[in-house]
């Protein structure tokens, strides 16, 4: 992660660091959903099991993030909701795309 220390009292002294942290978070999540798509596609998972793999890998990524932050979310992000849970819907489409592509390439075509 980028440098820590975001100060968020009423003054809202958000520095550029919060922005950089969120960019890194987005990158990490994209990697996570790409990997999830590749795994689900190659293993030929079907239907809801595939989406379950996506959710599972999403939470694995969040756990790794938590370990790297030493569980002190407030120092790096605005809230734990932001850092752990908030982006799950946006990367779902990316996962679906990669899943469809790899599923077709490996299993069907």
């Amino acid at each position, binding site marked *: 992660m980028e440098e820590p220390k975001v100060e968020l009292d009423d003054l809202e002294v958000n520095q550029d660091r919060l922005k950089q942290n969120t960019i890194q978070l987005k990158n990490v999540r*994209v990697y996570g959903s790409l990997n999830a798509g590749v795994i689900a596609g190659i293993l030929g998972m079907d239907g809801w099991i595939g989406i379950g793999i996506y959710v599972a890998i999403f939470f694995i990524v969040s756990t790794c993030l938590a370990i790297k932050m030493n569980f002190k979310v407030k120092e790096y992000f605005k809230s734990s909701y932001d850092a752990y849970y908030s982006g799950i819907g946006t990367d779902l489409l990316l996962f679906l795309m990669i899943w469809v592509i790899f*599923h*077709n390439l490996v299993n069907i075509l």
Partner: protein
Amino acid sequence: MSDILIDDRIRDWVFLPIIIVMFMIQMFRGLLTKYMDNRKTAQKVTSKAQVAEMIDKNITQQSQRLARLHGLLPDQSFKMKRAYLCDHEQGILTKASQKPAKDPMQSMSMMNPVAMADMLKQNLSGIVFMALQYQWVSYFFSGFVIGKVPFPLTQKFRTMLQRGVDVQNLDVRYISSISIYFVLLFGGLQKIQQLMFGDDTDEFVDDTQMQMQMQMMGMPTMPSFGQQNDPGKLFIAERTRLEGVKHTFELNKSSDKALKSLKRFLIQ
């Protein structure tokens, strides 16, 4: 129905080319927008209406900044600034909110050549490519099944996903090539492109989604022209917000905060 065997050549000549071509067009679009942005010169504010608009925008920015950062100011300064903005007769915000609501400015903003050029550029780099790709895919690659989606879908999706394939009772999972186009479009080749090609810190906006939303809304909204029809309401809202601000000067709390962080530091 048993599994359909799909020829290897479909994969070689249809599936992979669609993906590769869409990805390259995406990258090309990125380069194109960068090129056009570099060539954009500073726009001169010429017409009176534009000057008035800039003034309004600056006023709102000033009041928003004051509402956000009021803790940095001591009491007297804050009261002065707030009075400058919100006073009953002479405050800037009250004067601005009493201006009559402008007529729909669409006709006037259309005549502004710079804004039109901007809109054309946005359209070019977005919608034209989308339409082109759609035409290309549906012309060359229609009429056969290209793959299978891994998840079960209802019959409603059949028309969208199997366009050109007229076999009834074919499992909805088997998709035609136009649906691969849609999957790639919505799935976000942009994110992969951002991942691979750049840490541009201002690439937060994804413009395909925004443009498609704009198209779906039906009317051409231009981001540079704010809420034309009722600026008075905006100013009234800003004014009530400023008047409701409870001001404390942060320096008064600073010794407590320093003590707290020192304690936290020493305990670790």
